[in-house]
């Protein structure tokens, strides 16, 4: 039986002291390069503006650990890549911990305190775990190489929609070189590690304390046997070993030195980005401090340190680009490329010792590295990018901040400018008289309460499209009838209601948003009610998530939740069932923004509809193209619209009868797209409310009784 103390790995055996010193010198140099790089990165972040995300650090840390531990965000919509990454990640973590324990004993505990633990059973388990870790690492890297080389994934192409071939930053070959350099150096470290291990086993095959326990490092042992089979002798191995050892050692040290300077830094930046993730990113946009002179981001130093950190976290995985509705229809926007442009810009300007002049920090423009205004205006703020990003990059808040600057400079579509002026003047985007806001209610057989004068249980915030658009008015009336039939005590703000401001804010007209929000909050605060309901997901989002920042905290529900409850409680009774084959389109602002995925589906089930999901549903729902104020900006003639793209997706559902929406803007966008994409007659677009309305029959006496009750 070998003495357990002898069962360990030899370190520096047969090395000359000078050689060891040389190795340590390289080691310190690598650490110095690492520290210097880290310092310049931190200096870069500190050149950004302050951000208040420092609260609840422990909570944030724990959330980050959970996300990374489960690889939850990485396996989404790309299981194989996520799992391969898990192999690389956990392999690397274990190998790193392994190497660290050697340093802990050899360089710290043993020389200082004479403590040794790296032998015997501990060592054997150590070598088994590390062998498996290394094997996993290599497998993961092999898959990634295969994926990059042969799978031809569009999301991995660096060619840009917002640049022309021939432009210096069109397809960025340096990214491709970096990707391959990373993969090759990483896999070589892994492979040479095993070869080195095998060489050591062959070299020391005469030593029982090594050879007898070789199966605890199975990969190394298999390789050693192969080497012996092809004729490698212990002497040959001894001669081979120093060269291999230096190759492996120097490659590893170079790798460490390069971490803060290359894409490898995502090890740290992605983790930090996840840690500083804002759960309300894009749902609640940042306020502009009153004393700040200009709104939004004009220069790279206008970004916060958190924004700059997010830029560095991006691993170019392209999932955001794949999810982006603007990108899908060929608009000059890839959320990834906005982030990467800004990252390059930050690296070129903020990594210098001295900050360049203000003029060189302008991120808007047509030069290399600058972001085009067409790019920024292409965004629908649908949050598909933010939602899918595995490392919590928050694209939309940055895009909106940049738009705020464009708005201040007047760099926008004339039609959008007109609409903003109209909203300022009349309080709605239709340019209608305030007096006409509740005109849709005129033909109802009952009167709706004025919440400004009568206390109500539920205050109904109607929103612009539901109030003024003739097609949507039908839905609005149907919802009023539903509420009335269910005996809900509800009322309106009438001309006291203004555009809720959700889209105005996402356009970037922050001043106008503040005006609208504070006006509405003023109107609401003068009313006596318990909660708010709306049929408009856009209004719903801003009232729910953003009004609190302006002093208006209300309980607000989307109608689907309210109606579902009324049906469950039996206050609304369905007189018949529908046997339609339907599909449901999640509105961005209800679904992705506020996780209201289930209520509309539950209602469809109660109605008896057969729901067939489209490929992109729930959190991956595909924006109709109207968000972020794009409903006020005409799409260029001849281009496919996101709504048409969506119609095609629905069109392949066999026997589809109804394309169900639950958002006024969706109704407008998709009814239009149905006609223009040639599916008219094949299926119809309906508001969920209309389907519910179909199942109701309002007996005359109910209507009359209500009218009587009203007049009492």
């Amino acid at each position, binding site marked *: 039986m070998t003495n357990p103390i002898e069962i360990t790995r030899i370190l520096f055996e047969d090395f000359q002291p000078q050689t060891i010193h040389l190795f340590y010198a390289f080691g310190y140099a690598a650490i110095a390069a690492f520290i210097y790089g880290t310092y310049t990165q931190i200096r870069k972040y500190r050149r950004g503006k302050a951000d208040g995300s420092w609260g609840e650090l422990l909570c944030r840390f724990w959330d980050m650990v959970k996300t990374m531990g489960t690889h939850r965000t990485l396996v989404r919509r790309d299981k194989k890549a996520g799992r391969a990454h898990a192999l690389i990640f956990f392999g690397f973590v274990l190998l790193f911990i392994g190497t660290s324990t050697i340093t802990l004993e050899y360089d710290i505990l043993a020389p200082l305190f004479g403590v040794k633990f790296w032998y015997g059973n501990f060592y054997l388990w150590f070598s088994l775990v590390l062998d498996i870790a290394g094997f996993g690492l290599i497998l993961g890297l092999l898959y990634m190489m295969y994926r990059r080389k042969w799978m031809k994934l569009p999301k991995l192409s660096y060619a840009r929609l917002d640049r022309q071939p021939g432009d210096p930053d069109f397809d960025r070959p340096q990214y491709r070189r970096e990707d391959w350099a990373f993969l090759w150096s990483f896999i070589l470290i892994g492979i040479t590690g095993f070869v080195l291990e095998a060489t050591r086993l062959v070299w020391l095959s005469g030593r029982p304390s090594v050879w007898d326990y070789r199966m605890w490092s199975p990969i190394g042992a298999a390789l050693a046997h192969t080497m012996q089979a092809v004729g490698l002798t212990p002497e040959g191995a001894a001669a081979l070993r120093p060269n291999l050892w230096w190759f492996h050692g120097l490659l590893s040290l170079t790798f460490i030195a390069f971490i803060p300077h290359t894409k490898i830094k995502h090890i740290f930046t992605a983790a930090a980005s996840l840690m500083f993730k804002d759960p309300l990113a894009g749902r609640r946009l940042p306020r502009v401090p009153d004393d700040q*002179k200009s709104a939004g981001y004009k220069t790279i130093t206008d970004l916060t340190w958190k924004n700059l950190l997010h830029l560095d976290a991006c691993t170019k995985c392209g999932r955001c680009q794949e999810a982006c509705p603007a990108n899908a229809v060929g608009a000059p926007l890839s959320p990834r490329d906005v982030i990467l442009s800004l990252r390059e810009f930050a690296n070129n300007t903020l990594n210098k010792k001295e900050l360049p002049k203000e003029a060189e920090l302008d991120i808007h423009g047509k030069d290399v590295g600058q972001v085009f205004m067409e790019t920024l205006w292409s965004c629908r703020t649908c949050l598909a990018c933010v939602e899918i990003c595995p490392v919590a990059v928050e694209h939309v808040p940055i895009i909106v901040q940049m738009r705020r600057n464009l708005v201040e400079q007047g760099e926008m579509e004339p039609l959008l400018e007109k609409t*903003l002026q109209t909203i300022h003047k009349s309080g709605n985007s239709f340019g209608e008289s305030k007096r006409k806001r509740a005109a849709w209610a005129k033909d109802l057989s009952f009167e709706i309460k004025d919440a400004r004068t009568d206390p109500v249980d539920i205050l109904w915030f109607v929103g612009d499209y539901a109030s003024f658009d003739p097609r949507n008015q039908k839905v609005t009336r149907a919802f009023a009838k539903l509420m009335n039939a269910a005996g809900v005590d509800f009322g309106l703000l009438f001309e006291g209601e203004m555009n809720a401001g959700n889209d105005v804010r996402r356009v970037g007209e922050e001043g*106008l948003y503040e005006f609208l929000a504070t006006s509405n909050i003023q109107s609401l605060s003068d009313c006596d009610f318990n909660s708010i309901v709306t049929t408009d997901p856009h209004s719903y989002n801003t009232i729910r998530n953003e009004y609190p920042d302006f002093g208006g905290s209300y309980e607000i529900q989307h109608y689907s939740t309210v109606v579902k409850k009324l049906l469950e409680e039996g206050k609304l009774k369905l007189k018949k069932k529908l046997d339609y084959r339907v599909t449901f389109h999640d509105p961005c602002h209800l679904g992705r923004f506020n996780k209201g995925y289930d209520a509309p589906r539950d209602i469809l089930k109660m109605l008896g509809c057969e729901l067939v999901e489209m490929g992109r549903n729930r959190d991956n729902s595909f924006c109709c193209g109207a968000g972020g104020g794009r409903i006020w900006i005409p799409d260029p003639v001849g281009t496919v619209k996101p709504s048409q793209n969506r119609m095609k997706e629905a069109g392949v559902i066999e026997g589809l009868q109804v394309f169900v929406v639950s958002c006024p803007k969706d109704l407008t966008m998709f009814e239009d797209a149905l006609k223009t994409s040639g599916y008219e007659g094949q299926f119809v677009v309906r508001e969920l409310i209309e389907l519910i309305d179909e199942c109701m029959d309002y007996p005359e006496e109910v209507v009359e009784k209500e009218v009587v009750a009203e007049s009492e």
Partner: protein
Amino acid sequence: MKILVAVKQVAALDEDFEIRADEKDVDEDFLLYDLNEWDDFSLEEAMRIKEESPDTEIEVVVVSVGPDRVDESLRKCLAKGADRAIRVWDDAVEGSDAVAIGKMLAAVVKKEAPDMVFAGVQSSDHSHASTGIAMAAYLGLPHAAVVADLKYSPGSNKATIRRELEGGILQEVEIACPAVLTIQLGINKPRYASLRGIKQAAAKPIEAWGLGDIGMSASEVGEASAMSRVRRMYVPEKGRAQMIEGTIAQQAARIIEIIKEFKGA
């Protein structure tokens, strides 16, 4: 170097408006106020000259005659970059005609002594198209109306302008400066005044001047001194439009019938 821009806050009609009981004007409740569209262009022209010569110090002063509510429009001008704003008012001014307003503006110009004076061609609500020119007349300055293009370097004693004439003809004119120019729509692209800008402009003071400040008396202004007065304001009766329905042949037959009717055949 100073450019003075005379502006007006105009009224737009709300839908379903009503005429006042005395039938002299629209009921104030149905009016929405905003800066006159032409003034957006004349202010932009002043701002363009200012911004194209960053080395010359150029002050852009906006002036308006009107009650308190006009401050909102002046703030919009300040938000767009005007350096100062002056509002002239006295209750006696109520009911003044365009010529009297022109006289008041002329008095302001005399006091401010600018190197260039702009006004809009006309206002969108009353469409007199005479205030700017009346002002020029009182000042005795060279003037040009309906200016669609302007070449002027700050401090120069002349400017080259293009005036819009009937039938799409342009007339190029050289004019001695200081001059009064009334600016036509489309001469430039007016900038957007963001609401934050307007809010921030609230910090800039608006100088409130009375008749005394411009050396005028109440007898020179107001309804009594006006050279014309409104007798009645009304909505003319609608014309007889009708939709012709039926097949193409029926529609054609009906049109022929109508033509014959008009010809008196």
